């Protein structure tokens, strides 16, 4: 599949990090769900781990420009996100799969992804090709003409991934992308992630530690709205050391060990 590449895409980036958060605070309702988070990530696949309520989804939503920071700074593609900034330029380069992915039931798969591509202000001439490519990458070619309401949960999730990648985003945010996928689809998805991560900053929020270990180049672990750990998956697996801990794999044991140490430190 060959496509036209615009000069904007090939131009060297003029910013340091694709996503950079400094002492970031983001409110979720009344609660400060992200509370003083420091994080810098670039191209690659970043697995965002953390217990329920750690602030994963709030962090994802703030990077997706749904929520505005309540404090600290969030810099996306070199632009500081604040109340004054016109977000359209950044939003054109974001792909987002929300935790709760809604869709128009009466649209066909192709129509829905086309619609999202239009909302992302892609040039009209590029849309049909980009839509087709996105559908092929998630393996839904044979269902492209089917109505969304006829799809199974796993297929809907794949449409969610397709709509997120249709504009070849510089920042791809996937909140629980593997929910509802069967083991084979998950393996295909991991392969897709690795492919995307070569030139895109992919942030994958998940509960599944093994997904992270298998597909991510980088692990980000947060708890109580703060960064607890950032490193390569091997570091996570190594973190457990000889401690006996909860978990069936080295990565899971590492995950629980890091969290336990962090919480112990906080108590002290």
């Amino acid at each position, binding site marked *: 599949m060959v496509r036209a590449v615009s000069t904007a895409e090939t131009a060297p980036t003029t910013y340091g990090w694709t996503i950079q958060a400094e002492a970031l605070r983001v409110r979720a309702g009344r609660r400060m769900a992200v509370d003083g988070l420091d994080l810098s990530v670039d191209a690659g696949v970043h697995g965002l781990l953390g217990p329920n309520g750690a602030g994963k989804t709030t962090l994802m939503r703030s990077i*997706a*420009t*749904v929520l505005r920071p309540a404090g600290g700074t969030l810099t996306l593609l070199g632009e500081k996100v604040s109340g004054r900034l016109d977000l359209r330029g950044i939003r054109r380069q974001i792909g987002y799969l929300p935790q709760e992915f*809604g869709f128009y039931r009466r649209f066909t798969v192709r129509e829905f992804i086309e619609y999202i591509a239009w909302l992302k202000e892609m040039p009209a001439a590029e849309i049909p090709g980009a839509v087709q490519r996105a559908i092929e990458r998630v393996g839904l070619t044979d269902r492209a003409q089917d109505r969304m309401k006829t799809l199974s949960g796993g297929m809907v999730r794949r449409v969610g991934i397709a709509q997120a990648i249709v504009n070849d985003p510089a920042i791809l945010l996937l909140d629980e992308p593997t929910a509802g996928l069967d083991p084979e689809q998950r393996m295909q998805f991991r392969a897709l992630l690795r492919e995307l991560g070569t030139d895109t900053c992919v942030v994958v929020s998940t509960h599944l530690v093994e997904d992270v270990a298998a597909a991510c180049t980088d692990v980000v672990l947060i708890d109580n709205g703060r960064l607890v750990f950032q490193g390569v998956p091997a570091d996570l697996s190594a973190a457990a050391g000889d401690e006996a801990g909860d978990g069936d794999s080295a990565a899971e044991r590492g995950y629980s060990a890091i969290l336990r140490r962090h919480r112990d430190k906080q108590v002290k």
Partner: protein
Amino acid sequence: MGGRILRIELLRSVAPLAALLIAAAGLFVIYAGNLPEASWMDLVVRQRTLLVLILPLALGAGAWQGIRERRSKVEELFHTTPRPRWRRVLPTAGAMAIAAVATYLVTLAGATGHLQHANGYLPASAGPLIAIGALSMVAAVWVGLAVGALLPSPLTSPMVVVAGFVALTLVPNMIHPTGPGSPGSPGGYLFFPNLQVPDLNEGKVDTGAALHMLTGRANLAQALWLLALAVAGLALHAAARPATRLAALLPIALGAVVAVALLPANLAAAWVDNPHATELTCTTDQPRICIPRAQSHMLDKLRDPAGQALSILDSKLPSAPVAVTVQIDERADDTRPAADTLLLRLELNASDAALTRDRLLARMLEGGGVPLCLSLMGREPTSETTTRYMAARLAVVGWLLDREPPQRGGPEGALAIAALGALRALPADQQRARVTALRDAERGCLTGDRLDLLTGSGTNG
């Protein structure tokens, strides 16, 4: 690309289904009416009054569509896209508007099956009525979109249908104690897109709406008011911030002010006679027939009997007419035609049964080709004066056609047979002279007993 998205919305939004259901409901109500609509104008006005039913449905369809983003839980995802809300809602609003206009026009087209004469006169003044009806549908779906987006609840759609129906039915009757039908009803009734029709034919025989039209001012006031509602609805739907929403209400105030300035004080003053409908159009070939536009569809049925009547009169009477002019019976007065013109009175919506060759021929020859003088008719339709008058006129038909006088089932029939017998008993030149005398008396609406003139021992006896 906007065009492709519009195409998708035309297929996938609620627009096609709503259009189908609303058109079906409208057609059902129109066809449920026992009698077919007499004229195009009657049908067009009927459809405008029918808005009382279909506007609330259009409002409900709009609201249902307006809730789609909430119902489908796409708000968060769409919020992260660069395209601003007002651009996003345009294809949807466009698809809904196209469907609304199509619904109105398809209903009208479908309703022509319930029209007495689809080939009848379609006045230009029907155009604004149809266009404003379609515009009101657009206003309804756009206001519905706004309400749906502002109150995204599953109950919103049924609620606005009920609220719209109540507003369009109850409020007009609350404005004035006797409703829109009374002479004193205010022009404010024109704020309702479902036409409130006053008594158009007060003191005259009812001809429905066929010979009437709404003044240009009244149409303009309605159009501007509905346009303001539509624009406000769309702006309200497209607005993303509370401040813009408030500003979106501005057109409503503006439209109301302009409409109030344009509307007449009295509803009845908004309706006027349509001079174009009663204007005569004439054939260029023989026989020469002039007919009001509102009756022009009857022309084909008139040609044969008109030619025959003119040639019979020419062969049997001196100074016979050479052309036929049709007069709308309901609007008839005793204005006498020129001697060269046979004046035929036809009911505006004469049924096909009244338009058979034989009946038309008999009607044209009555009184020697002169319409009856209304001023000579007795007060009672069965009075002796009337009976003798009618009998004399019918006897002339029998004499001209060389057969029994036509029977209309009244007491004049037997009298006409007797009169014809007496007339035929006279010498031929006498017969011709007496018929001519009767015809000339009719031409001048002279007083005097016509039966005496025809058969009596009067001056000619």
